[in-house]
């Protein structure tokens, strides 16, 4: 075997463990889900193998699923916007902080040491009728009756922002930290104010990080079901809750498979659009 042929094979040999893992842990289960989506559920809960389009017809034509999907995308979009608005200043501050950068990054990572469910449930102790905030407001006399703050769309978004903010901050941080500060100094020396420098230099250069953080936040928010379950009211279900219900409560794995593939297709399309315009490199940088 020639040197060129060996060199050509080398990357594949190095990649093979990852490729095998991805094949067996992602593509094979995904293929099972695709096959399942064409099966049918019987009245007893058993599945009938075959090629039936009933689940797909129901998932694609029923207004119920479309409305919940749109509501899910809306909640994910609002969450992403809030994460971007609140996360950008924090990321900028960390990136420009000379002495405490490591410590601040450690603080940013601290929430990951606590379970996501526990973090979500902590809001019940903060916003509940007898929670910390109501107790404080009652104690100060600002209110005379506890406020009902939990179990609505706002608390679902709050829970999602709490969960996803670090992803946004990390991505923006990587982007801002990589900007050559001489560019900002040059803009200042040419007469630009600090705001003009930020708007004309810093913000455009950090947009890839913002977009990568936005994509991560959006995809993770759109796929969550714990937060609406814990912090949502009767009408605050998201699309992943429908998948959970179809598979777990109704034991309708075929319909649940079709619904999960539908969500995957929508979010996959979003990733493809992102990749077309910005490429995946920035996303990998932020995640690393």
């Amino acid at each position, binding site marked *: 075997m020639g040197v060129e042929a060996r060199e050509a094979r080398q990357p594949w040999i190095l990649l093979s463990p990852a490729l095998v893992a991805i094949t067996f842990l992602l593509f094979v289960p995904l293929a099972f889900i695709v096959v399942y989506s064409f099966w049918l*559920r019987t*009245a*007893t*809960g*058993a599945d009938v193998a075959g090629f039936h389009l009933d689940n797909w017809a129901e998932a694609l034509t029923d207004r*119920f699923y479309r409305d*919940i999907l749109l509501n899910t995308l809306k909640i994910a979009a609002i969450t992403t916007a809030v994460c971007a608005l609140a996360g950008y200043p924090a990321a900028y501050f960390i990136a420009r902080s000379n002495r405490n950068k490591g410590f601040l990054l450690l603080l940013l990572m601290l929430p990951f040491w606590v379970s996501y469910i526990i973090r979500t449930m902590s809001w*019940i102790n903060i916003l*509940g*009728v*007898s*929670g910390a905030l109501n107790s404080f407001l009652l104690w100060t006399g600002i209110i005379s009756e506890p406020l*009902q703050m*939990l*179990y609505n769309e706002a608390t679902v978004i709050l829970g999602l922002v709490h969960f996803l903010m670090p992803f946004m901050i990390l991505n923006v941080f990587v982007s801002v930290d990589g900007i050559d500060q001489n560019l900002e100094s040059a803009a200042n020396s040419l007469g630009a104010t600090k705001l003009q420098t930020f708007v004309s230099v810093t913000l455009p250069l950090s947009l890839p990080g913002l977009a990568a953080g936005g994509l991560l936040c959006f995809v993770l928010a759109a796929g969550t079901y714990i937060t609406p*379950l814990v912090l*949502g*009211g*009767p*009408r605050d*279900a998201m699309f992943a*809750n*429908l998948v959970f*219900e179809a*598979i*777990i*409560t*109704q*034991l*309708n*794995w075929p319909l649940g498979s079709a619904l999960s593939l539908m969500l995957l297709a929508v979010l996959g399309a979003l990733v493809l659009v992102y990749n077309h315009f910005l490429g995946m490199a920035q996303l990998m940088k932020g995640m690393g």
Partner: protein
Amino acid sequence: MDSTKRYERLRERYLNGDLDRRVFLGLIGAAGLAYGVRTPFVREARAAAAEVRFDGWGGVVSEAFREYAFDPYTEKTGVKVVDGTFGGGDEYLSRVKASQPGEYNIAHLSGVFDYARYAGLGLASEINEDNIPNLKYVIPKLVDVFRPITGGKISCVPYDYGTTGLAYNRKHISEEEMKEKGAKILLDEKYKGKIAGWSDWRTRIWYASLQTGQDPNNATDMDAVWEAIRTHRDLSLKYWSSGAELMSLLAEEEIYVTEGWSGRIYALQEQGHDIGYFDPPNGFGWQECLFVIKGSPMPECEELLNFMLAPETSIAVAEGQNYPPALDPQKVDLGKKIPTLPAFDPTGTLSGLTFADPDYWNGHEAEWSKEFGRIQKGY
């Protein structure tokens, strides 16, 4: 044919010259490889018989099982009980469906309808009743109801019973008001935002049947039932999905009224919360059983069930869980606390409780669980 015999025949063929040396060694090597791969799994499978997996409802119920049944049983027999939890029979069924035979062993199932559903999916084992002599202490009615479903045999032992009645905050709702309004209090505009309900389709339909004046085991006007469920949804703060959530919502005074599980409400009362409990006429009665799933190590499971049904264990667990045990009060002295528990029947006939008809509920399961799922989300 065992492995030794196979090897001897292979060796004979080699010595006779039917196989060349390379093929012979290749086959020996392949057999060795197969044994090497198989052995760790076989060892694991054999070791699994030294433990039994038990899944229940979590919270105070599981704590009582652990303290009064599993730990003493492990101490006595050396068989470990792996203790898991679930939020409901539907969720658990989905997990069992995705598992390998033998992975899940015993489940604390609710209602005869769950038993029928699990049996219908081919998950029923066959218990040797001779191995469970303590079954003689159980209320006969509770055992007999399972037999027709599994051809005269049983796949479970009854363990406790209770009700899903109305739980209310006595600071805001009086006993008189509760008795007067009954199930309809869950539709009272006055308590909008302070009402909750279990996100279980059967319970919702059962209570909507009561609210619309229908027989919960034979509702004829389903449109009225769905409308009552919609009204309840619009007045509700939240659908709870576990006993812990139910207790938290009531204890934190997020809600004033919901339907709730009798034992959990008793636990709240024991903790000092001013929560009342009322079983409306035709309230939802249920019995729970310890169901052995097909493919489980039967001798260990039967031994555990017998241990759990021993009066001293069963009474201790019942006192911890706050649900009356399935033991017949006419045969066993149940002590002082159990007669004070909600839903307790001193006669052992359980004639005062209305149980769900498994044929009626399982016959509509696919259609109604889906319809409720939509209504729950605002449709």
